[in-house]
């Protein structure tokens, strides 16, 4: 089972069949989620219409953390089992995670200006999410710095796992220290503190973002596998021409 799923050919075959369905589901759930967030959800008693930024901001933050968690699991797969798909998954996840983190930071700043009175402060939550973005950028740079995919994957895996220490800091920053950012509203011990009419659109948007992340991640993995196939073919071709020139 494990070795069968480890086969890139198996992945290419099945992702090719399933991905159109995932793409279709993403569009449908996104359309539903956006309609619920922007037309059905009531304005907040304090924030008014500004609350609608949350329906983009919060799912982006979830995906930024979700993709990094997946990248960390893949990093262990690369370092320990040398799983042939693990480093492909890692490489495909980094730019996506960086994009979601950037969306999270920008929408947060746009919400912060009217609500807090400032775009940015250096509190523990905002700073740790900025660090997450910088780690994503560093990982992408390291992928490009080393030419051989195998060696690059091992170096990136170590950086990824060190950066994973930031994940609990982001999650619990609002509980461990006082911050300007509010504490968690959805995933908390005593249940959500968001009224259901606002929580359901948020959860649908969360599902839409998850489908979008998974779909784009699988497409990026396919692209990376094909890029590697071309690289191998180029090397073989160069060797063939080389041996002919020598003969």
């Amino acid at each position, binding site marked *: 089972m494990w070795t069968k799923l480890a086969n890139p050919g198996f992945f290419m075959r099945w992702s090719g069949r399933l991905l159109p369905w995932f793409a279709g589901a993403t569009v449908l759930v996104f359309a539903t989620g956006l309609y619920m967030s922007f037309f059905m959800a009531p304005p*907040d*008693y304090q*924030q008014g219409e500004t609350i609608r930024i949350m329906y983009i901001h919060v799912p982006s933050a979830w995906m930024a953390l979700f993709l990094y968690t997946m990248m960390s699991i893949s990093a262990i797969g690369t370092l*320990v089992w040398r799983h042939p798909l693990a480093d492909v998954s890692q490489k495909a996840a980094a730019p996506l995670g960086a994009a979601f983190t950037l969306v999270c930071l920008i929408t947060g700043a746009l919400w912060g200006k009217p*609500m807090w*009175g400032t775009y940015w402060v250096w509190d523990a939550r905002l700073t740790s999410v900025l660090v997450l973005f910088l780690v994503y950028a560093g990982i992408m740079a390291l992928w490009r710095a080393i030419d051989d995919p195998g060696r690059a994957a091992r170096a990136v895996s170590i950086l990824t796992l060190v950066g994973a*220490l930031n994940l609990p800091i982001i999650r619990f920053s609002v509980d461990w*220290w006082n911050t300007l950012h509010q504490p968690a509203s959805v995933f908390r011990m005593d249940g959500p503190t*968001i*009224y259901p009419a606002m929580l359901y659109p948020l959860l649908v948007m969360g599902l839409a973002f998850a489908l979008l992340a998974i779909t784009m991640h699988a497409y990026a993995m396919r692209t990376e596998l094909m890029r590697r196939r071309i690289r191998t073919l180029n090397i073989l071709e160069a060797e063939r021409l080389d041996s002919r020139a020598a003969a």
Partner: protein
Amino acid sequence: MTRKQRRLTLIGVTGAVLAISLGLVLFAMRDTIVFFRAPSDIAAQGVDEGVRFRLGGLVEDGSIRRETGQIHYFRVTDGGASIEVRYQGLLPDLFREGQGVVTEGAVDGSGLFRADTVLARHDENYMPREVADALKAQGLWQHGDPAPGTQ
């Protein structure tokens, strides 16, 4: 022990050591990582005149006083102690009695906190206006602040 088990152990041990050292660093820095200090802390520890810091808490009920030239006086409280704040400028929309705020500035000779920045703090509660009004009508309102439009 196979090579795979050895690699897994190495990663686990390295990760644990890194996590513990990071935890110790964050624990040692806990007083500087906090974004603001509460009035009770200031009352207990004292603070030198002219030293800049951020003061956070709730705007005390009935303490807001406005003067011409956009000068505002209000008291910031955390239930224990409270400090009088003077601020000149535009206040954020969410600013009102009972609202969480973070102000930045320094204490002057008379014990007045002269702030040059006032940020409103939002809490983790989200609800429609009708629900907030209904909760207030039933006397179940726990945030201690009037909903907008009623003051």
